[in-house]
């Protein structure tokens, strides 16, 4: 009977841990509802940051950025992990005129431990900028989310 009760208790603990692991703390998601304009050539911080806590054994995280935008030219968007240089890969945005409309883009990055993740708190910031000649990009409504891989 004692063993049975211990078994049930262990099951409850396991369920509690599983539920907690799926909870998304508010700092892992960000929603912006005002237009923000950034100027300059790539690459600098574009002012949007989320954080995530890594367990003892660091695992990959998935970052998703979805935004409306308009831009005076072509450029690049990437992420900076814990202050490391902006990793833009091949994430281009293209010219979108300031005619009252926006274009939209959606990027997803998978960040591996080797990309600079550390145990505990990690900061992930959106970065980028215009290509040759500089200019500006305006973000409309947008969301940024990070979640740990399972």
């Amino acid at each position, binding site marked *: 009977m004692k063993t*049975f009760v211990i078994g049930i208790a262990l099951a409850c603990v396991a369920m509690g841990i599983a539920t907690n692991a799926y909870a998304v703390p508010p700092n892992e998601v*960000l929603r912006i509802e005002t237009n923000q304009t950034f100027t300059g050539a790539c690459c600098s911080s574009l002012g949007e940051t989320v954080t995530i806590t890594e367990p003892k054994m660091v695992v990959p995280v998935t970052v998703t950025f979805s935004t409306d935008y308009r831009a005076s030219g072509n450029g690049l968007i990437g992420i900076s992990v814990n202050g490391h240089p902006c990793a833009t890969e091949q994430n281009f945005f293209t010219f979108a005129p300031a005619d009252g409309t926006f274009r939209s883009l959606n990027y997803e990055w998978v960040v591996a431990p080797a990309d600079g993740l550390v145990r505990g708190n990690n900061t992930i910031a959106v970065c980028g900028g215009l290509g040759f000649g500089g200019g500006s990009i305006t973000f409309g409504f*947008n969301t940024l989310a990070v979640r740990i891989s399972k």
Partner: protein
Amino acid sequence: MSNYYKECKVSRLTIVRKHAISLAVLGLVIGIASSALAIPPEQVLHVDGPIAIAGDPCCFSFNETISMTEPAKPVAIVVTFEESGESDGAVAYLVGLIVNNRACKFFGSGFIPGIIETDTFQPRTFQWIVFPDDGLRKGRNTLTLCGGSAFFPATVTFRSFTLGARLSN
């Protein structure tokens, strides 16, 4: 001596059986918990088209709904809307969500720009984040696609789309 050996053997078997039952119960409970964490079908909607949505300028319901069940303390929902290309030219369109029959609102990017060339298809993905303060409540919550033309009455035709959501637990 023989009896003593037999009693020990029986006692060990009893202990092993008890542990086996406990492990089985543990496995069963974890299995049930994992099943509960799978995405329920009402949280995902896939529509094959073409789907023409006509109407006045933004915003009105597209009558396409998914639902989510929130725990006692509601948590944020991450919604993804993917459409595989719209076929009408030169129509700037907006897409958002109605949460629990409230007003149509934009929870992130939602702009589909006018297309210069007709019959071209550009897939798009939008990610929206709905916070508890946006009207989520304990129990069943409905999320309905909404939107409309940005400037004048117009029709947009999606080849197909998927609307999905995940609860934060």
